[in-house]
């Protein structure tokens, strides 16, 4: 008896729990209408006129009538790496956080009654895994994500973002969109899987006083400058030289170097091609820079700590993405002058004062300066509940009224639309220099067909690190070949 009672009680608890977990039903207004039905004739409307004959049968029916108010605005859920609720002025992402605080009310006002923008903060290092997992298990996904171009091929492989090609081609902004930015958003099949919102090409930030004769134009000149700086107890450059973040350094200064010798990684058929004369020459040059002591030890510590050597100007230059200006602060110039706002303004102020300038990567013999393109972009996940709203959001972000704030804010780079580039906000020294440097460089999309870019970058950076740092006598061609084969055998 006790057992039966316990079983019934348990079932009751489970039923209650399930009931509590069920989705709430939509709010409707129920109206009970009594209809009178005769045996001979059924009259539905109007109710007042139906009593034509003696009433013989009365049936009560429940009719659900929608509330007479206008339809509520639909949500557009986004995943940005920024958190509108984080007001910490020391947060690394304060610029993006502030952008959301400013932009969300503007958007909601502009689309009052139609869309409501709800951002769910998603740290950048979790975005990819969270989205892939959510799509694969058919869980809730956002309507929109903000992403970097490096995600495109992995998202393509996992089938987690929607093909936006046809829709994009029909939009007004498409004709004036930067072609390299569009290539960055293209999957190996040539279709567009995201919409670029800002360009972030890689460049070199240079302390003017560390290079009184001007920043070197060629890699050979840079080695000579390295020797001069070494005698002064300084370094020619610092760069992301570690294997941290799964070899992401391969897409940063290492790629700039490779590009400056005319090399690359992607063979165009889904595999990597490392053992080329251009790549071997690039790695040999980088090895010489490191082994000669022209690069500080901190460059290999990971965790973006290599930036420290530029911040205190012990290193004369740092090749990195344009976006880096956001994070490299505070600054102390070689003269001792300090830029201590501890915001992106430090770099902008140093550039405006002429202490820092942007330069193309020094080029290898007979080559153009290497440069990897980079972008900020928006994409619509597979399974998004409100793709129409997401598309309208993208158009809003790319509008002449809204895009400048985005580019100056979280975009952290150059506009992708020509008409926006011409606006007064983008005539400051930082932007003018960045445009000039990008034009003088041979900016390329790093990955065009390789889908597992993190694994490829890990293989490349492990090999490069070994060659330039731990085993400077190892055969460069042989090690690059080994890394190439190690990755390629994982590709079907």
């Amino acid at each position, binding site marked *: 008896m006790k057992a039966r009672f316990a079983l019934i009680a348990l079932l009751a608890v489970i039923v209650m729990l399930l009931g509590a977990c069920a989705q709430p039903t939509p709010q409707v207004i129920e109206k009970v209408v009594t209809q009178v039905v005769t045996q001979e004739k059924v009259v539905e409307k109007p109710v007042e006129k139906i009593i034509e004959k003696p009433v013989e049968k009365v049936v009560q029916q429940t009719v659900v009538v929608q509330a007479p108010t206008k339809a509520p605005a639909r949500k557009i859920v986004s995943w940005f790496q920024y958190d509108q609720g984080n007001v910490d002025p020391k947060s690394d992402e304060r610029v993006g956080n502030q952008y959301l605080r400013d932009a969300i009310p503007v958007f909601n006002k502009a689309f009052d009654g139609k869309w409501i923008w709800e951002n769910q903060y998603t740290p950048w290092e979790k975005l990819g895994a969270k989205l*892939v997992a959510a799509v*694969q298990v058919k869980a809730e996904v956002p309507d929109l994500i903000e992403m970097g171009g490096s995600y495109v091929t992995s998202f*393509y492989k996992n*089938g987690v973002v929607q093909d936006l090609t046809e829709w994009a081609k029909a939009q007004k902004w498409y004709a004036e969109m930067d072609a390299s930015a569009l290539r960055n958003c293209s999957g190996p099949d040539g279709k567009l899987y995201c919409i670029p919102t800002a360009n972030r090409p890689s460049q070199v930030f240079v302390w003017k006083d560390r290079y009184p004769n001007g920043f070197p134009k060629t890699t050979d000149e840079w080695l000579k400058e390295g020797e001069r700086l070494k005698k002064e107890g300084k370094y020619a450059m610092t760069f992301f030289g*570690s294997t941290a973040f799964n070899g992401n350094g391969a897409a940063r200064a290492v790629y700039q170097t490779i590009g400056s010798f005319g090399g690359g990684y992607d063979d165009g058929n889904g595999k990597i091609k490392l053992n080329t004369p251009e790549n071997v020459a690039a790695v040999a040059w980088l090895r010489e820079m490191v082994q000669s002591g022209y690069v500080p*030890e901190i460059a290999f510590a990971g965790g973006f*700590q290599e930036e420290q050597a530029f911040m205190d100007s012990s290193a004369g230059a740092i090749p990195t993405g344009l976006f880096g200006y956001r994070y490299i602060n505070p600054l102390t110039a070689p003269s001792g002058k300090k830029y201590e706002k501890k915001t992106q303004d430090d770099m902008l102020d140093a550039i405006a004062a002429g202490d820092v300038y942007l330069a193309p990567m020094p080029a290898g013999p007979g080559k153009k300066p290497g440069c990897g393109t980079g972008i900020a972009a928006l994409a619509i996940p597979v399974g998004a509940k409100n793709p129409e709203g997401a598309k309208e959001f993208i158009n809003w972000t790319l509008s002449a009224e809204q895009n400048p704030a985005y580019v100056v804010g979280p975009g952290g780079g150059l506009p992708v639309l020509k008409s926006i580039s011409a606006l007064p906000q983008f005539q400051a020294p930082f932007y003018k220099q960045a445009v000039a440097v990008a034009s003088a460089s041979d900016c390329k999309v790093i990955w065009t067909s390789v889908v597992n870019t993190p*694994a490829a970058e890990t293989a490349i950076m492990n090999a490069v*690190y070994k060659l330039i740092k731990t085993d400077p006598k190892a055969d460069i061609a042989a090690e690059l070949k080994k890394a190439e084969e190690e990755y390629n055998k994982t590709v079907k």
Partner: protein
Amino acid sequence: MNQPATAPLLGGFGPKKAKPRRRIDLLPFILILPTILVLLAIQVYPALYTIVLSVQEREQTGWEFVGLQNFEILFDSAALGESAGHTVVYLMGYASLTLMLAFFIALLLNRKSHLSGVYITLLFIPWILADIIAGVVFRLLVLPDYGLFSGFLQNPALFPPRGLSVLTADAAKPWIGNFPFPPSPAMVYLILAASWRALPFITLLLLAALQTISNEVIESSRIDGANTWQTIRHITIPLILPTMVVALFNLTLGGINGVGMVFSLTGGGPGTSTHVLSYFLYSIGWVSLDFGRAAALAVILAVINLTLIAGTLRITRVQHRSA
């Protein structure tokens, strides 16, 4: 031969004796049902799902069955063997160092000095820190050129010829083949940091076990002429052996599966010198977003875990019997 009057003949058609009905009390099963359901949901289902995932690969159109291909790729890659080697070095260093230090500290604390309570409280501080935080703090201490101890460590006079940069120094040439021993300075530092973090819990575990040993047993051994070492070797250790096994399990499983400290302290570097299996798993799953292959590695790790547990149990059981 007399049969009892009521005994059935030839299988018996006689009057049946009503057997007392055996009552199965369902209540205990019902009471543990919620726990079983929770375990099924959060342990059994994910484990089975991991096995299912390990034989699939994600394509644009959805999951595709690939048989054992994920395992083949893993076993064919140099990274798996290399990571396994680093894991063995890490595990041996971490588990043995922590267990020995914890045992030593527990013996000291068991002497009941006036400040034992204070020591225990102080000792517990590392345990309340998250792995990631502890890793970041340890990292900042030895950051090349900028760390708190970098001036001391990178002094060529103290560490010739070029000073010691813990996070970027190269490993010595392996003694045996490619097995990563002697470990890199970063691996040694990782072991020290992880041991520091795990020490409080293991110390308290062993201290609790030591306090269950009767003083009379220890005194008897002394009367019989045993010195301190002999008492520890033949009395104390055998009596707390079950607790030591639990501690060893805790350390082994925590060491092989934990990724937080590696992630925040070394990021698997310099180069690949602290690239352990758990970090390898993290990289495949959460960076490369290749959940099928990550699941295959998780299955391999589970098999290694089970083998280690079984092996440790077997060895300690034998030791326990012989003791």
